[in-house]
């Protein structure tokens, strides 16, 4: 049952109680229905572009393009979702991606060879490098009690700086062909790109982790009321460190996938990944105030900007409009979140 019904029921049952009853506009009520509405917007966009340009937009190739473009951002956004649910923020995901990509590339280069073993070394070193930055973020947020915005703004600069120091500012381009050919451009059954399969697998796995397990429950509880979580015997500091480490590991995976896709460390190419991932998460209905969020919403939130971008190009609209549209959707999403919260207070 929806929140709206529950609120109404509570109002009827407890008339002596001051449950706010104003703002009953349909759009305000719609906002209270979790991330359903954002899925409808995505479907609406797809339908609209399909009607406008059925032959080009609505093709297998184009679907593949959109999904491949969105895949790496989706992996980042999944980690970002967990962090934002704890009422935190991770500005360092893009730099962590770059740093992990650099370490991964260097390790593969050092290992030498061009086989599965080399690729596995690259994957593991990327995950560890990303996880290390995540752990540092988590430690500073949970133990040193520094606000996440500042902690991750700091590591945003530090991770990118470290990547530049290691490479002396020159992209590492010697990526094993096995990786590029296998994961970067390869497809499952010759149809679905590996990048997309991996990204959706990550989303599915972590979606289940968030919605069905104790780990997810603690993440939501800490975002909702850290003091309540603490009194319930949850080790809040430890859990926060896990969540930031998780975001770092996923950024490391994204760095590895980025190597596979582009065949280079793309050091200069990820300065807005943090904002893009936050935008996707927030559009997807996850609350910046913490305690509310879903990975399904984040998947929608990643695909809406991607579909807009692609659709505008295909329909001949200047693609710069995409930035304007996404910005407006973001502001609207946060406004609706605030409405939802004030209704419930």
């Amino acid at each position: 049952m929806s929140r709206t019904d529950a609120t109404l029921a509570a109002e009827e049952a407890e008339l002596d109680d001051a449950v706010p009853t104003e703002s009953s506009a349909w759009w305000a009520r719609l906002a209270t229905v979790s991330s359903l509405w954002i899925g409808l917007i995505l479907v609406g966009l797809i339908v609209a572009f399909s009607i406008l340009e059925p032959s080009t937009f609505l093709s297998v190739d184009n679907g593949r393009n959109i999904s491949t473009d969105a895949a790496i951002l989706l992996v980042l956004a999944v980690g970002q979702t967990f962090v934002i649910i704890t009422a935190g923020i991770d500005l360092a995901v893009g730099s962590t991606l770059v740093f992990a990509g650099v370490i991964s590339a260097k390790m593969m280069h050092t290992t030498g060879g061009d086989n599965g073993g080399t690729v596995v070394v690259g994957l593991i070193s990327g995950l560890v490098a990303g996880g290390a930055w995540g752990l540092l973020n988590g430690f500073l947020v949970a133990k040193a009690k520094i606000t996440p915005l500042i902690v991750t703004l700091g590591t945003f600069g530090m991770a990118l700086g470290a990547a530049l120091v290691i490479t002396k500012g020159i992209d590492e381009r010697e990526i094993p062909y096995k990786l590029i050919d296998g994961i970067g451009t390869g497809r499952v059954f010759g149809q679905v790109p590996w990048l997309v399969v991996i990204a959706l697998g990550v989303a599915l796995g972590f979606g289940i982790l968030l919605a069905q397990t104790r780990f997810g429950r603690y993440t939501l509880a800490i975002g909702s009321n850290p003091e309540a979580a603490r009194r319930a015997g949850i080790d809040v500091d430890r859990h926060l460190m896990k969540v930031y480490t998780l975001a770092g590991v996923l950024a490391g995976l994204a760095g590895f996938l980025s190597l596979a896709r582009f065949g280079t460390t793309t050091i200069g190419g990820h300065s807005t990944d943090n904002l893009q991932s936050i935008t996707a998460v927030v559009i997807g209905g996850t609350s910046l105030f913490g305690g509310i969020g879903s990975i399904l919403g984040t998947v929608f939130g990643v695909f809406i900007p991607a579909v807009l971008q692609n659709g505008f190009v295909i329909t001949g609209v200047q693609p710069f409009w995409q930035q304007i549209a996404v910005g407006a959707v973001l502001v609207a999403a946060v406004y609706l979140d605030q409405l939802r919260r004030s209704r419930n207070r």
Partner: protein
Amino acid sequence: MSAPAGTTTAGVGGVPLLEARGVVKSFGRVRALRGASFTVFPGEVVALVGDNGAGKSTLVKTLAGVHRPDEGQILVEGKPVDFASPVDAREAGIEVVYQDLALASELEPASNLYLGREITRPGVLGKLGFLDKREMRRRGDESFRDLGVKIQDTSASVAAMSGGQRQGIAVARAVMWASRVVFMDEPTAALGVVQTRNVLDLIKRVRERGIAVVLISHNMPEVLEVADRVEVLRLGRRVARFTRGDVTMEQIVGAMTGAIEHTEDAA
């Protein structure tokens, strides 16, 4: 000096369920408790009253394992205990409903009941941390029904619920886990008339389940209605104990303010 008429030692016999003896607790130079004693007998509602700064909160937190006494003893069923943390107190069957309730309002009622003590699914999934949401909801609904906490839609988040319902959820959580004593800190302070009524009924139902309730309250009519006994704290020590039936509001208030002088009771 003899105690005035109406002051009696508790009529409830037997070994106290929970007892504080001569507890001293200082914070820096502030002596919050100066040899405070407090007794809870099985199956009773006992009100802990006192003016602001009398040391009620400190005493509750000491009995709940949040603070460790500098001096004095805490006894559970006559045996001295040493609570190093709230977890120890909880394991001894003592739960506290704090004034701020400590609910995660974005989660549903059942999630709050089981927060930190979730039921997981049987088998391998459970080992992986998968929650048995259906079972938690079922038992939660059962517990709300037993306690008469009316919640229309237990799948909605706590944020959508009224103050009385939230209080009900917090009490239900405490009762679910307490085997001996539930402390309730000002449970009706923020509530309207009807909801206050519901909470007082709730307190009586908790007692019927054999769990002792310690009610911390400023509201004397409420205390007189629901409490079997009253213990009065003043300036960090117990100054009077009354049994319902032979006490008036004036006597309690007198003890609280020091207008009626009592000797330090011998417990």
